[in-house]
């Protein structure tokens, strides 16, 4: 009986030691962000701890290039057209998680390098029609509710123009925030928009966006705002015309 009682002590200690196992199970990975062969920053990740990927200043990004983020692959070997491209890098300010990197770590450290692509090499996604809207409600008068209502009207119009359900599922609506320069710059980077809604006359100047049509005087929550056409796709021309009718812009008022 005494032996049984004595056994209880090591068993209890063994159970308690389970608590410290948690620490032992942590697998730290040192993440080094390398820019031009030098360490830009570093941090440690494990199952319970992430870090944020750094961003680069405009000066650090090569001319005519877009900075996609940080990759643990050879940046020169990353194919932007590959199906799993999105899984090969972490966006600037994005979350660096142990789960993402664990299978690629050799030793305890992994090096992430910036992933740049020449703007000309970046494929533009294809949509049936792509609409960008200025989500700074106080300026544009547009809100998510108004845009949702307008998209319903748009779909009804597109159906009259022979669009299929597949086409309707391939409509891209993108909100843009920030000032005109910031949002305009993002629009130019995205390159896929056919039509823009809610900016002012300075979209082309301050925003730096090249438009094919740029018409003001559209009532958006009582504000006089612009609509802009960026491409000469047939459906974009039709929608742009429709936008100038009462039926086409009533949802904005």
């Amino acid at each position, binding site marked *: 009986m005494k032996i049984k009682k004595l056994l209880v002590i090591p068993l209890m200690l063994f159970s308690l030691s389970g608590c410290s196992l*948690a*620490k032992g199970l942590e697998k730290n990975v040192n993440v080094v962000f390398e820019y031009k062969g030098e360490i830009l920053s570093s941090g440690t990740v494990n*199952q*319970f701890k*992430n870090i944020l990927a750094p961003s680069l200043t405009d000066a650090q990004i090569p001319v005519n290039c877009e900075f996609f983020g940080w990759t643990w692959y050879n940046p020169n070997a990353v194919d932007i057209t590959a199906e799993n491209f999105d899984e090969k890098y972490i966006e600037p*300010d994005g979350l660096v998680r142990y789960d993402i990197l664990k299978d690629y770590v050799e030793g305890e450290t992994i090096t992430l390098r910036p992933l740049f692509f020449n703007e000309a090499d970046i494929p533009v996604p294809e949509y049936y029609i792509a609409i960008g809207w200025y989500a700074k409600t106080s300026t544009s008068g547009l809100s998510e509710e108004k845009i949702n209502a307008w998209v319903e009207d748009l779909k009804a119009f597109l159906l009259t123009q022979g669009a299929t359900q597949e086409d309707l599922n391939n409509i891209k609506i993108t909100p843009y925030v920030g000032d005109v320069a910031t949002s305009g710059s993002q629009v130019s980077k995205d390159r896929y928009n056919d039509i823009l809604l809610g900016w002012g006359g300075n979209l082309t100047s301050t925003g730096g966006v090249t438009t094919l049509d740029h018409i003001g005087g559209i009532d958006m929550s009582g504000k006089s705002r612009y609509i802009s056409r960026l491409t000469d796709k047939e459906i974009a021309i039709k929608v742009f015309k429709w936008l100038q009718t009462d039926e086409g812009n009533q949802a904005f008022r």
Partner: protein
Amino acid sequence: MRTRKNLIKASAIVGYVSSFMYILLTACYFALSNSIYWLFLVLAAITLYNSLYSSCIRRNLDDEKLEGKLKTKFLVNTIISIVSPISLILNLTAYLWKKEDRFIEVANPEFKIEVKEKKEKKFFKKANFVLTVAGLVAIIAGSFSANIAETSSYSVKVRDFTLTKEMTEQYNAGEANKLNGKNYVIENDCLTYGVTEFKPKNATQSNPLPVIFVMPGFTRTKATMAQYAIELSRRGAVVFVIDPGCQGSTTYAGYTETETGEKEQVSATVGANGLDYLVQYVFNNTDEFTYIDRENFGAVGHSAGGGNVGQLAQDFAGNSYEESIIKAVYLSGYIKNSLANRFKSLRCNAAMSYAYYDEGAFRYQSDVSSFELVAKRFVNEINGKDLGIGEAIIDYEYGSMSDGTYRVVHREQTNHCFEMYDTLSISNTINFFRRTLNLNTNLSDSNHTWMFKEGSNGIALVGAFVFIISLMSLLIDTVPLFKSFKVAREVSANYEFEQKVKYGTLPTNDPSKLAKKRFIDKVVFWSVTALSAIIACLDYIPLARLSMELFPDAAGNTYTFFFPARMMNAVMLWAVVNGTIGFILVFGVKAIENLVYKLTNHPEYISWYRFKQMKINWKDLLLTLGLVIGLFLVFYGLDHLMYAIFHQDFRFMLISAAPLQPRYIVTWLIYLIPFFIFYLSNSVRVNLSVATEGWSETKTYIASAIFNSIGLAFIIVINYVCYFKTGTVFYGYYSPKDTSEMWLYINMVFGIIPMMFVLPIINRFAYKKSGNVYLGALLTVMIFIMMSLSASVSYIPM
């Protein structure tokens, strides 16, 4: 020499341990979604049955030598024991052992059971009486000692009050009472908040002290945040702790009428979950709160409470640090975007903490919601601007305390539900308020006394159970009214004694009484036990999910009389299902066994004891009910008495017997019957199944306690093995497609396991005293369910 038998015994014991280890591995691999767990489950079963068979062979060696068929069987069993290598070695050694064991008669004709005539002890020397007194002493001493700790040796005055609509109408309404342009007046009379104030005795009109508001999280009550109140008040802060909506002593918020005349529920968390009302009331009430420094208000909250104090700080922010009513806010265990979106509006010093091992972190692993991003926003979004200083460095102090831009982020190495009991976390909170609110104290931040209160309350809790059980025993033994209980217990004691004699636990002088526990009997018993534990482990989360479907109102925080305790609904469904399964297994298996015995001509094994012992006459049932109700009232009567005298109830961390509230009494009545199924099932299993195995009493107690809690314990094992291995809890979302959050239901299990461990022990004790299975079940269901409900949330419209 009994070397061979000892070797086999050792082999069996090692086998049982190996079986448990295989089960553990099964749970681990199951947790990691690795299908190899099936292999370990099979190995566990093989090892278990192999060991059971070894035990049977060992018993047979009493009568037979190891030769012939027995030898062959043992050889086969030895080969199978390869799955437990140490057992294999021991079995092989036993098999090859040359010397025969000396034949040992278990039935010894010379043996006589000597019945020692016990001298009737004096009443006050009887164990029951001594334990009753000891329990009472523990209750009083524990409560008294907890009271000393809570009041910091009576240097802090602790009192409860209720915040009503009338009080807020008097102090919060009207233009003159607006704080930063806002009035917070309780809308409905039905909504009242339970508040506890910790006022240092040196707080006077001439020495006004800073004020700190403390907010518990979802399903917690103000008493669970006492540690913050104790430590801050003993450092010179007036502390107010509030019960959130529908929790503790705070009622529901009632209804309002919409413009269309429809009745609409007022949210249970209205007014920053009551804090807005309280802060404005305390600030404006210069008649009563003359001893507070209105320039130094702070607030701390944990989990959902963290979100509430964030809202509070924003609601009272004004346009500058000078205007802000809340000068310092500590946000603990809460990193939702809804809170992060408030950061830019804060005009006060702020700290944020998030447990390193917070189980809820799996929800925040994206670029827009992670702790790292929220922490970055916390230190960057100051006074409506983005400072652009990058990722937050843990424990680094940003900004300045003098202008309300101070920010600090902590990550203590603890988990979510114990973060509020973590000493470092509490020290960090103290440090923050000591410096931001200028607390006048010489105490170091790590000087804590709250654990003495916790420990003392724990002693009182244990004392209360010892008292109530001893009192039950004392009443049955001494009050003539309970004579029939004594008769019933003799019947059960005799049966159990016979079983012990039959299976060799007790010696006998009558060899004809000896029986060997057959392999098949052991297989049936252990298979049923393992099956019920596995089911209990695996069905909890699906049933918790089902509770959301069956009780949508409670699950959606809608006021209802139909099972209003949202989190307890999951436990109740689990109890109903597993209680029913328990009945089916205990009675169904026995009925099938009897049928098999009858068909195979083994009438000596047939037993209807289990079924017969369920019978109870009306008189005994009424007596049982009367006794249980009486004991329940005594238990809670003492609880109230201790609360009235010492401001202490019976509790230990997450387990508590809070003073009774009308809303919880009604809720309790709703839940009693469904839960009773489980509690009775447990009593039946312990007393009519496990206790008839012929085991020693100690083994019966320990085994029953383990059987009843191991299924739930394995939920924890599965959840945390997965968590520590992958960083994501096993029971996070219900499934990849169904993102219902289940992780909070696991937190409930922490509080339930100790109760499940104690439950069969009380059930067994009550049965031994009364011979009926209902007494323990009724007593435990009444006390445990009231305890669990009052420590959770109930959306009952009261």
